């Protein structure tokens, strides 16, 4: 039965396993998520976590079902969601988060991520503080009229497998390692027959021509456009000619010429990785240090020893025109070097207490750490990010205005115990009240910005509505961010995301 279940899960989850692998899926199935408030937004988020097979979810919601939220409250929601995937365990707690914070704040410590939906500011800040101390990632979500808002609050989130979209190759042509140099020596372009010549990998071609170039240019790489052009021409002259002096069709040489620009990129450690090497956690390893930092330190040790200033070799080569044997042999040179480097990293890791440095070694260029400011820092007058706010507001199209409006309606709520414009008769009179909230907000934080009356009118018009299509957009976005946190794959946003459904635009702000 175990085998049958595993097989059917592989089939069911096939399309997503191709993105985060079996190990990512395992993390997902071991996770327990809490969603506070089963509103349209809350249930949309949950749907997108239940479908891919989250281990368990708990809904916290103290509201009862009303006409406008049919089917969206804790128990009803739990039942309907469970129907989507029988592998997932669903729980519900019919209690307001404020009550839980009063009586049992440690309730929230058990979760992999807590997602707070449509929370008033005071609850948000209280919960934020509890979760920050407990190092539980917190995702705040809000749908307000046609505006979607997300805020990620996580102290330190490490990512080994960031899966970058357009990574540059790691070929080391500017500083070839010994095994590669030996392999290149085994080729003699001048004495090859036509078939071999046309099926030599472009990497070998560039390496060969670089050697010649070095000897004529004082061991300097082609540096500027002029020199690179000359180098390309140099390679072009190497194309075989037929008996009439007409160049043959050698696609591998064309590939070499095309790749000159990127192949000559200097091998260097990305700034983001250097910063990690210089961070406190990396340099102060104790028995309590999480394994990410131990592995990172091992990579750093490698860089200063076996690596001679460079990261471990990644080991991948792109596909290219070549015959099978030449390609496989070349690929193996890189792969074996990568394995060698990874073994060296693992040895450092052993020396630093732990095991398994291989995955970290291969992904060394792409390691990322996301650190978000706490809500307390964002909201405090002393540490508010004034610069980000005022510089964004210089641009009339910036989504920053919506962030300020959301803060203003929260302020309105605190004062009037309701949101503006909920009932038709309130819309007109609430405009001036909301304007007061806006001004008090700007004054408190000494923000010298101007918010047009149109936005104040629009936010009264919204009447704190939670339209389904905007909830659904946020539902997909938030669920994926939660999956990134749980799986430690792909990179979460930092730290505020605003979606404007009117213009179908968005912005990520760091507040």
């Amino acid at each position, binding site marked *: 039965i175990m085998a049958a279940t595993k097989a059917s899960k592989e089939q069911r989850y096939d*399309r997503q396993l191709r993105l985060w692998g079996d190990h990512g899926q395992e993390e997902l199935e071991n996770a327990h998520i809490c969603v506070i408030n089963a509103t349209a937004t809350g249930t949309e988020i949950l749907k997108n976590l239940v*479908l891919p097979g989250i281990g368990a979810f708990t809904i916290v919601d103290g509201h009862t079902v009303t006409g406008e939220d049919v089917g969206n409250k804790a128990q009803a929601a739990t039942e309907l969601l469970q129907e989507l995937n029988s592998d997932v365990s669903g729980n519900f707690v019919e209690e307001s988060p404020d009550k839980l914070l009063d009586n049992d704040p440690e309730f929230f410590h058990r979760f992999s991520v807590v997602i707070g939906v449509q929370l008033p500011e005071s609850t948000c800040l209280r919960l934020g503080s509890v979760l920050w101390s407990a190092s539980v990632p917190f995702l705040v979500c809000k749908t307000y009229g046609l505006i979607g808002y997300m805020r990620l609050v996580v102290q330190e989130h490490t990512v080994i497998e960031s899966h970058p979209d357009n990574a540059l190759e790691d070929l080391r042509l500017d500083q070839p390692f010994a095994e590669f140099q030996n392999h290149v020596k085994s080729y003699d372009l001048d004495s090859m027959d036509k078939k071999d010549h046309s099926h030599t990998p472009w990497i070998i071609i560039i390496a060969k021509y670089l050697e010649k170039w070095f000897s004529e240019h004082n061991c300097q790489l082609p540096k500027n456009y002029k020199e690179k052009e000359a180098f390309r021409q140099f390679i072009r002259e190497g194309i075989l000619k037929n008996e009439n002096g007409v160049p043959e069709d050698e696609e591998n040489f064309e590939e070499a010429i095309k790749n000159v620009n990127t192949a000559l990129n200097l091998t260097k450690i990305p700034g983001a990785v250097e910063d990690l090497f210089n961070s406190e956690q990396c340099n102060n390893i104790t028995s309590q240090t999480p394994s990410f930092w131990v592995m990172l330190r091992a990579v750093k040790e490698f860089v200063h020893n076996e690596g001679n200033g460079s990261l471990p070799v990644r080991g991948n080569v792109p596909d290219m025109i070549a015959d*099978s044997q030449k390609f496989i042999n070349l690929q193996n040179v890189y792969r074996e070097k990568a394995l060698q480097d990874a073994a060296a990293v693992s040895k450092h890791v052993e020396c630093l207490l732990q095991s398994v440095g291989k995955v970290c070694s291969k992904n060394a260029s792409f390691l990322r750490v996301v650190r978000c400011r706490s809500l307390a820092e964002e909201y405090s007058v002393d540490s508010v990010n004034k610069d980000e706010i005022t510089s964004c507001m210089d641009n009339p199209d910036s989504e920053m205005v919506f962030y300020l409006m959301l803060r203003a309606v929260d302020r309105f709520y605190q004062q009037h115990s309701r949101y503006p414009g909920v009932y038709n008769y309130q819309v007109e009179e609430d405009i001036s009240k909301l304007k007061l909230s806006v001004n008090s907000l700007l004054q408190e934080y000494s923000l010298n910005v101007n918010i047009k009356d149109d936005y104040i009118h629009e936010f009264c018009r919204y009447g704190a509505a939670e339209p389904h299509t905007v909830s659904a957009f946020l539902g997909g976005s938030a*669920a994926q961010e939660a999956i990134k946190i749980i799986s430690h794959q*792909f990179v979460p946003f930092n730290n505020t995301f605003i979606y404007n459904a009117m213009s179908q635009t968005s912005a990520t702000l760091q507040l």
Partner: protein
Amino acid sequence: MADAEEPMAVDGGHRDCDWDGRWNHVRKFLERPGPFTHPDFEPGAEALSGFGVIHVVDMDVIDVSNLNRQFLFRPKDVGRPKAEVAADFINSRIPGCKVVPHFKKIQDLGESFYKQFHIIVCGLDSIIARRWMNGMLISLLSYEDGVLDSSSIIPLIDGGVEGFKGNARVIVPGMTACIDCTLELYPPQINFPMCTIASMPRLPEHCIEYARILQWPKEKPFGDTGLDGDNPQHIQWVFERSQERAAEFNITGVTYRLTQGVVKRIIPAVASTNAVIAAACATEAFKIATSSYIPLNNYLVFNDVDGLYTYTFEAERKENCSACSQVPQDLQFPPSAKLQEVLEYLTESASLQMKSPAITTTLEGKNKTLYLQSVKSIEERTRPNLCKTLKELGLSDGQELAVADVTTPQTVLFKLNFTA
């Protein structure tokens, strides 16, 4: 999904199926004036009954691998037509909404079907299908004295996803950029060169294609049946042959999962990104149906691999778009050019990208097929024409060629311009 003509409820959401408060969130957008609404917007409660009738067209049946994201389906529904199960689900759960299913290809339905709708929303899985739908809506446009009759316009909302990337666009046929206007935006499909597959494999994918393209038709392991990507026995056979080939060339990395992915051209997919794009499309459908806001103008790109990234821009109409510009398409060739060259141009040009065009013309008052691929007997009969020159075929300068192809529901007219 498409919306059908139904009289909207006049008294604002008080049908039997509308309980108290059902439309509270939506009515704020319909009843209240605001500073960002569409210039044509008139506040009122008339549209307050949601989308009354929706027709769904889908040629597929449900597969287990759909269940990780297609939430209207359950394990018990595997094997049933998607359109029918989706309709059943919504009809039984959402009072007041009627979904009419069509277990068909979009191409199986014609003008009289499509012209009944206010809006068409597409979530198709191929560019060919998109172009066909695009062409259909363009063919419904009517012009009076060269002026477009706006009542003949049916907006098209198109969404697509691939892993963590997606896009949503709004097309107003005859007015905004259409699918063919932006054909160059779509990346070409990866097809490995035959010589690589046949004699110089380097990647595990090459080994799999070898088994699929060369070994299967030769060895016919299950009789005369075509390779069925959904048949695990077929995939297992391809997998084993691929492993053998890979071993011959010292290539690592052939797995069952990779085999299936290559054979079925599988694109990874998750619930979350699909939800984002579907939501964006639904938002546009709402805006267009209610005139409450100016719709997306006209293309949204989304990517949440690293944070969340969106890019919104106005795709421009192409002046000489072969689908929507009404400008006769030019074919510039010397009379000594062979028909083969014309065929290659039709399939390889970035702006046309036809799949298997059928070329006909009128010669001496009679309709003549110059070349047609899709019917074996006609293909054999017209194949020699490919090697003949345009002059030899009797074509003259200014000759009109009619080209039919799966990428468009209507034939495209080309004018032959002889160059020196």
